């Protein structure tokens, strides 16, 4: 409040005895507020508000004895992540099963997984990304597991010869 000299020259004070000027103690705070808000804006812009989200992955401990856990073929579903966002899937063992193709849309993979998860007790899902797939495909497939609530799933990168042959023909 720029009132350092307000006591001077007021119309109604005409003719009065001149007193010694009393300097107002008020200081104009506007520039200070300006500065403070500038700094506030700066800190607001540079601060990291959102911490990144993460997915926790637990890979099986590499066993030295070569021991593996087998799952029943009737309770196993395999997803093979191919190139151009394609997914090949089958139930059971690769030599006898029929392979089908789908995609990552809600009506594709998710619908199939929901149906199979309902009809199969203790479903185990095996996710096999091929070398032609990308990282997003892998994250999408893992994400579907948590969306649908499939508890048992594994990320595997070994392919059976049958699988390689069959996805070539699809």
């Amino acid at each position, binding site marked *: 409040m720029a009132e350092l000299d307000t006591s001077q020259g007021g119309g109604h004070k005409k003719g009065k005895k001149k007193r010694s000027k009393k300097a107002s103690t008020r200081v104009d705070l506007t520039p200070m507020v300006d500065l*403070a808000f500038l700094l506030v804006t700066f800190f607001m812009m540079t601060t990291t508000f959102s911490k990144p989200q*993460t997915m926790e992955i637990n*890979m099986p401990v590499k066993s030295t004895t070569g021991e593996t856990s087998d799952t029943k073929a009737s309770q196993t579903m395999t997803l093979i992540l191919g190139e151009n966002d394609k997914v090949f899937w089958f139930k059971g063992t690769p030599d006898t099963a029929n392979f089908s193709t789908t995609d990552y849309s809600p009506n594709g993979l998710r619908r199939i997984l929901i149906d199979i998860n309902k009809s199969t007790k203790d479903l185990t899902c095996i996710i096999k*990304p091929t070398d*032609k797939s990308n990282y997003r495909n892998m994250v999408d497939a893992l*994400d579907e597991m948590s969306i649908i609530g499939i508890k048992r799933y594994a990320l595997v990168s070994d392919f059976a010869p049958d699988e390689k042959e069959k996805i070539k023909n699809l």
Partner: protein
Amino acid sequence: MPKVKVPRKSTNIDMTAMCDVSFLLLTFFMLTTKFKADEPVVVQTPKSISEIKLPDNDIMSITVTKDGKVYYGVDGKFNREKLLQKISAKYNISFTEEEQYAFSLTSAFGVPITKLKTFLDMPAEVRKDAVQPGIPIDSTNNELGVWIINGRLANPNYRIAIRGDGDCPYTVIKRVIATLQEKNVNKFNLITNLEVRPKI
């Protein structure tokens, strides 16, 4: 009729209260702010519905770019210094004081160990824009594994986070995960963007 005189009010407003508020906010932001670490590359992470937050500190990050280059970084100035000392002892490369200081300020880098010295010798502005070839992850020359082991030795509490670009080829991620498993790291995090959980 006498004119009614409207008393003229001052247009000045008392700024004291506003000043108080703004400085309160300023103090709040100054105390809570944590500056964004400057990342050498921009990575578009895929989306997931996972809502687990990444902890603030003790993070060892492995960044994989769209074209499959791997960058490595740890947090904490002190831990970075310790890490560099371990690497310099292992590879018999001595680093000057300036190079050690430069390394302690580098949040992530993607150069092979043989080129690390040249990389740290660059002035800070040049280093920021320098082309980095990525850390070798081939099975014959797996430097990422060396960095992971020594990072863990420097600070055993490090959690490993993979920040991969959605479009990066799976082969690179496969190599990174295989490297982690070789080093007996079976638990790690994948950094993703938040997506709304769809209704099913």
